[in-house]
Structure formats: C-alpha cells, structure tokens
C-alpha cells in the first residue's frame, strides 16, 4: 500500500478525515486566532476537499475505489468465521469498516464540497458576528456528508448521519436571537433524531438476521435466504431516517421551517447536499442489500407514490409562500420528490437520472438561497410583499434569481436540464407517463413561484400586494412587521457605493454554482460520466465483488449513454417553461383574474384544498412526530408483510 496507487485508494478516507481534523483544530484554536484565519482555513479545506472529490470522480471511472479501514482487509484473519458461513461470501469476511467510492458517491461528495465552499465564501462577508465554531461546524458537516456518501457499512453510515444531524441542529439554531431559528432547530432535531432511531432499529434487525454490518455482506446474506416479514420490516424502518433527511412527505415538516430560519449559507448546504444524501441512501441501500430480496413491484410503487405526493405537495405549497426562503424550501421538497420518482424506478437509468437531477438541483437551489441572503442583508426582510419593487435595477442579484428560476423549470443549458431530461426519458421508457406529468407540474409550479417572486421584487410587476387589503393578514402580525434581523446591523442606510463590492463578493459564490450547473448541462463528458456512474451504481454484483475481493482487478463498466438533447426533452422543457410563466403571470395579476368569472370559480375550487394543506402544514412538534410515526407505519405495512 505505497505511494501513487496508494494515494487514490486512501482518497475516500482523506476526504472525510481532512475536514474532520481541520474542524478539530479550528475548534481548538479558534479562541485565540483572528476570524480571518478561521475563514481562510475553512475555505481552503473545503476547496481542497472539492478538488479531491473531483479527482475521485475521475479515478473511480467505471469501477470503485474500495478502502478497508484500520488495516482490516478481508482475508487478514484467514477467513475464520467460527461456524461455516451460510451466505455467498466464502468465509472471507473482514472485521473492519469499508468505504466504497463509486462515481455516484464521489459526485455527491463533490457537490457537498462545492456547496460548503460556496457557503463559506458567502459567509465571509455575510456573517460578521460569528466565531470559529461556525467554521468548525461547517467543516464537520462537510466531513459527515462525505462520510455518509462513501460509507459501505450500515452502522458507519449511521454515525455520519448523526454527525450531519448534530452539525445541522447547531448551525440551524445559531441565530439565537431569532425565535424562529431556535424553534426550527428543535423541530429539526427531534424529528431527525427520531428518524435516526428508527433507522438504527432497522440496522439492528438486519444485524440480527444476517450477523453483518457491511452493506455488501448484508446483501449477500439476505439473498441466501427467502425474504420474510422481518426483512421487509427492517427495510421500512431503515429508510425512515433517510426519508426524513430527504424531506419526503410525511417526514418533511421540518424542512420549511429549518430552511427558512437557518442562516443563509447553512440553508444552501441543507437544501443542496443534505437532502440529496437522503435520496441517495434509499437508492444505495436498496440496490446493494435489498434488490432481489424484497418484491420489486411493491417497493417501486411505494417509492414512486411517495415521490409523486412529495413533488406535488411541495410544489403547491411553494406557490402560496411569500417568505422567500420558505418558498425555496418547499421547492426543495418538491424537487426531492421528483428525484425520488427516479429512484423509485429501481433501475439503472432511473437512478442515474435521479443523481443527475440532485446535482443540477444543488447548482440551482444553492444560488437562489444565496441570493435570498443578499436580499435579507440589503433590505432586512425576505417577505416578498415587503420587497415589492425594491430590487428595481439591482441586476447583480436579480440575475441570480432569474437564472435560478428558469433553471428550476429545466431550461436547457442550466443545471437541472440534464437531470430533468434524462429523468423524463427514463420515466417514459419505463411506462410511467403520469410521472412525467408530475415532473413537469412540479417544475412549472416551483419555477413559476420563483419567477413571480423575481418579477415582483426586481421588476415591480403586477399589482402591489401591500395595496390590497383583502385577506392579507398574516397569522402572526409581529412576524410581518418586525423585519428579519439583518446579519450586519451596522450597515449604513444607503448601501450604494460601499455595498456594491460586498454584494458582488456575496453574489460571486452564487455565480460559481450557476456556472457549475451550466457545465453539467453543456459538457458532454459530464453526461458520459453520469451514464457510467449509473451503470456502476446498478451493478450489484460488481459492488459485492469489489468489497469482498478488493485486491483483485475488476473490469470497468462503461455506461450506455442516452442522448440528453432530444426533441422530446426540449419540448417538455419548453412546456414546463411556458406553464411556469403562466403560473407566475396568474399570481402577479391575480386580482384581475379573480374578477373574471372562470377565475373566480377556479379560485373558489382551489381554496379548500390549499387551505387544508396550509392547516396541515401548521403542524406543531407533537403533530410532526405523529406524522413521522404514521409514515413509518405505512411503510411497515406495505413492505413488512
């Protein structure tokens, strides 16, 4: 295990350990070093981690980089297993923890790295009053995201899952002067921890059945015996934690609050990276451990229904938000539902499309959150109505919103185009055109809401919402009157000349992400890489072989690449865009529409549904727990029979 080949083999470990070590140092010495040092170290580490992840994406190629930790490779013990092994592992099991880096995992680690980097760059100027603890927590978050994606062991994944959670709770609640932040952090904490406990019960039951923790071993042992109720129940509980992270209905109530109230750079990472990890986990655990064990059709239908419901509920709720960050949070929920549709196909193309979608979403949603942070910083509020017309002429920030909004509809040449086109193709090939309609609807509604927001704030289009008096009272008046606390209270009233450079520095990371998204859509190598990644992900036997026999050479796969720029893809993108513009226009000129008889009828029909959704989403903490348990019960009944 020496030099060049050795370094690549250790790369997965380093991607986790370097941010961890750096976080420990920053936490240790932060008290005595100036803020600039903490900023610089954190940014440097995030940049190095991103570069390392990019290298890993290339090196993983058509195979996997497998790293057994602590020196315990299979065969070190000479294959002693006590009783003869009953599974197909051949008695060669190891006692260590394994990291498996295939291209998909590496791409998600890269996305996490880039998002954390963007967040840290943004917070360099945005968060004036913060200590080194913030930087330490962000680095820990990065390490946890990386570890979770790369883990080849269920319990190890659980530990990184919990670290993700701990960092998120602290980061989400860090603005302690803001009650909404703390409330949101408590909701996030309780619901995520309960979900994690259910996942742990699932892991325990799987351990009881198979006697193993490494995903590959678990899969092999499960396949050696017929599935029974225990396996199904274990799967149901196992994915609850992942689905909570993925903000899938009915585990999603924490998302809107947390992403609305957390500091902006944290929101960008939560929304782009953490939720993606939840979706990824479901796909990975199914593919390696449960594929061929549990009934295919049952799980497929379950995941697709969950995905569709999430996509639609998120999209509808998104339309009715006036708090910019909440709007973006619901849009995230919706897009995670769409990605879950891809995962739910349980095949190579569906998963490849879902991963592409997750990457594109990160490059679209991240900039939007950063843009909302600029709005908050500049105007002290993120209420769409209060911001009406305020942004006229501010095109540095406005352009981020325009591109982000169009990107959410899957505009070709922007981030989501790749994922959306491949997803729609995979869904229609698999015989689920209704799912394609859901994808288009979700894209149209979310994009329309962002475009409406952009038009209101930056163009002053439509009726002035503050002039309207009808039914506009928000439930809690003090939320609307009291502006969100600006992060820089000492900013001068007229930010013109001084503010411009600061704003440019804050907008730069958003542009970085948008550019990355454009690269995803336009660079052909990315599409080939994605197709290969999908093929490798679906290759269950290859995964198991690589883990069981890391020293043997393994043949690399090449993915069958689907053309991304198809006529039907472009047509659907066009359709989504047109619908999005209609949605935006309908909202902007709503009073005039309502005066028109069909408009009035439509509004009246929609009101009870939307009202009901609103009521449900005003869930307090015990209700959210009840919904989580209900979701778990449904999963258990469907799969665990």
């Amino acid at each position, binding site marked *: *295990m020496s030099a060049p080949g050795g370094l690549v083999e*250790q790369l997965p*470990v380093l991607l986790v*350990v370097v941010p*961890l*070590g750096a*976080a*420990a*140092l*920053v*936490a*240790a010495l*932060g*008290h005595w070093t100036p803020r600039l040092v903490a900023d610089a170290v954190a940014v440097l580490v995030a940049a190095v981690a991103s570069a390392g992840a990019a290298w890993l994406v290339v090196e993983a190629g058509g195979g996997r980089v497998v790293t*057994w*930790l*602590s*020196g*315990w490779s299979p065969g070190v*013990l000479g294959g*002693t*297993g*006590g*009783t003869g092994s009953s599974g197909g592992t051949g008695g060669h*099991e*190891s*006692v*260590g*923890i394994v990291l498996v880096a295939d291209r998909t995992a590496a791409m998600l680690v890269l996305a996490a790295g880039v998002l954390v980097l963007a967040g840290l760059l943004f917070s360099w100027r945005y968060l004036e009053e913060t200590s080194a*603890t913030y930087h*330490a*927590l962000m680095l*820990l978050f990065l390490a946890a995201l990386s570890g979770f994606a790369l883990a080849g062991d269920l*319990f*190890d994944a659980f*530990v*990184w899952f919990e*670290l993700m959670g*701990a960092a998120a709770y*602290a980061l989400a609640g860090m603005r*302690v002067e803001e009650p909404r932040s703390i409330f949101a952090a408590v909701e996030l904490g309780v619901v995520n921890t309960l979900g994690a406990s259910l996942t742990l019960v699932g892991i325990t039951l799987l351990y*009881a059945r198979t*006697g*193993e923790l490494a995903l590959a071993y678990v899969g092999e042992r499960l396949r050696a015996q017929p599935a*029974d*109720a*225990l396996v*199904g*129940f274990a799967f149901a509980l196992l994915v609850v934690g992942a689905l909570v992270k993925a903000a899938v209905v009915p585990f999603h109530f924490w998302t809107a609050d947390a992403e609305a109230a957390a500091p902006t750079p944290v929101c960008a990472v939560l929304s782009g990276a953490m939720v993606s990890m939840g979706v990824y986990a479901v796909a990975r655990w199914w593919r390696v451990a449960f594929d061929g064990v549990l009934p295919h059709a049952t799980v497929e239908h379950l995941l697709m229904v969950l995905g569709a419901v999430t996509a639609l509920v998120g999209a509808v709720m998104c339309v009715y938000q006036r708090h910019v960050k909440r709007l973006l949070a619901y849009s995230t929920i919706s897009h995670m539902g769409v990605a879950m549709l891809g995962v739910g196909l349980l095949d190579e193309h569906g998963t490849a499309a879902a991963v592409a979608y997750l990457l594109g979403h990160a490059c679209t949603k991240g900039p939007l959150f950063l843009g909302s942070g600029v709005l908050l910083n500049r105007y002290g509020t993120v209420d769409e109505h209060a911001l009406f017309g305020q942004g006229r002429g501010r095109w540095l920030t406005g352009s981020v919103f325009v591109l982000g909004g169009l990107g959410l509809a899957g505009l070709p040449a922007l981030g989501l185009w790749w994922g959306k086109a491949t997803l729609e193709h995979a869904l229609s090939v698999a015989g689920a055109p209704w799912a394609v309609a859901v994808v288009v609807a979700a894209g149209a509604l979310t994009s329309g809401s962002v475009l409406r927001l952009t038009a209101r704030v930056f163009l002053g289009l439509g009726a002035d919402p503050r002039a309207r008096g009808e039914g506009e009272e928000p439930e809690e008046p003090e939320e609307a009157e009291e502006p969100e606390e600006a992060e820089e209270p000492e900013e001068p009233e007229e930010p013109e000349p001084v503010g411009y450079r600061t704003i440019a520095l804050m907008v730069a990371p958003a542009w970085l992400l948008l550019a990355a998204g454009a690269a995803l859509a336009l660079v052909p190598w990315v599409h080939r890489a994605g197709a290969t990644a999908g093929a490798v992900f679906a290759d269950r036997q290859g995964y198991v072989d690589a883990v069981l026999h890391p020293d043997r050479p393994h043949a690399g796969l090449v993915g069958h690449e689907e053309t991304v720029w198809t006529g039907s893809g472009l047509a659907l993108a066009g359709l989504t865009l047109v619908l999005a513009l209609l949605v935006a226009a309908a909202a902007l000129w709503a009073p005039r529409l309502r005066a028109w008889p069909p408009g009035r009828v439509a509004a009246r029909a929609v009101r009870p549904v939307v009202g009901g959704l609103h009521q449900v989403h005003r869930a*307090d903490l*015990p*209700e959210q*727990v*009840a919904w989580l*348990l*209900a979701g*778990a*019960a449904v999963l*258990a009944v469907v799969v*665990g029979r």
Partner: protein
Amino acid sequence: MRTRLTLVLAGAALLVLAVVGVHAVSELPAAGDVPHPYGARAVAAAFGHATANAVMSVTLDQRGFDTLGEELVLLAAAVGTVLLLRELAAETREKTEHGYGPEDVFEALRLVGYVLLPVTLLVGGYIVLHGHLSPGGGFQGGTVLATGLYLAYLAADYRALDRLRPPGVLDATEGLGAFAYVAIGVSGLLAGSGFLADWLPHGTLGKPLSAGTVPLLNLAVGVEVGSAFVLVVGKFLEQALLAPDDVPEEG
C-alpha cells in the same frame, strides 16, 4: 381538536407498528440464540492484536472509524452548545451574586467534596488508561473525569469551578484531543498499514502496555470527552445561575 386528531394518528401508527413489529420479530431467533458471526471474528481479531477487552478492540481498533465519527459528534455537540448558549452583546451579564455561595454549603458536603474530588479524578484516569484491559475506556473515563470537576462546584461554588475552567483552554484540549485521534490514525497511514490501523507493537494480552495504539486512542478520547462534558455542563450551569427569576417552569 387538533390535539385529539394528533393522538388518534399517533396511536393508530404505533398500533400498526407494534402489530407488524411483533409479526416481524417473531421471525428472529429467541434472544440468546441469535448467531454472531461478526462477533466471533471480532473476538478472534482482538486476540490477534493482544487486546483483552474485545469491546475496546472493536471500538478503537476494528471499527475505529466509527468511533472517530462518534467522538466528533460529541465535539460538534459541545461546540454547538457553546455556540447556542453564548452571550449576546445585548445581554448584560450579572456575575455578582449566585444562589450558591461558599457560606451556603454544609461543612460535611464540602469535606466530602474535597475528599472525593481527587479520588474521582484518579478513578476516571484509571478507567481511561485501562480501557483495553477491563471494562472502560476513553468515553466512560472521560465522563467520570468531567463529573469529578463538578464536585468542585457542589462542594464550593461556581467561582471555584470557573477558576478551574479558564476560557479557551477547554476548547483547546477538546479540539486537540480529537485532532490527536486523527493524528494517530494518520500515523497508521504513514506507517503503511492504513488509516487507524493498530500498527504499534501489540505486546502480550493482559499487560498494561498491550494492544498497540488502543491505549493511546483511549487517552485522546478521554481528554476530548472530559473537556467536552466540562464545557457543556459548565455552559448550562452558567445559564441556570444567571437566569432571571421570572422564567416560567411549566409550559
């Protein structure tokens, strides 16, 4: 109304989970008869590395990566708690009279505290250092060490405790403890055995100097955990002692 609906929803969900759960768990062997192939391998591996405490071998040697993550969860929590309970510029800090000054402590309590403090610290240190030989280890020992310091608070007063916790020092020891763990792991990489490999000479089973890197890792963990808990509980004590009297206790 909402409350009742919530209870119905939760109750139904729990009932369903219980029923499905019973049906599922009945497919398991009875407790005590569950086969443990991984466990058997782990015990053999512990012997291979001369670690008497097989649980410690699993925790710090075989599955040391997990423990690294776990330790950093604790660091995240400690750092996060300090962040969340920080003073804001707007809050004025009245650090004058606490509810529990030196004159309020019973003499007996003070005596017991003074006697128990060094004993507790000694026991904690023992548990940390002998983790590879007997039940214990860094986490358990670190916790004992931390609670030992709180005897100082109980026996004396908050000011005494505060003197024992100069600001910044505990953050440093905590972070450096975690970093030491990482560094020992990296040393395994540099020694060519792999990250967190137990590459030091293993010695003989049952002797204090055995199990290679495990005692060192225990020490690092002990330092980190002890510092983390002192930090966390200290922050809460600060809040409790400085809280105004009109914060309601019930919701």
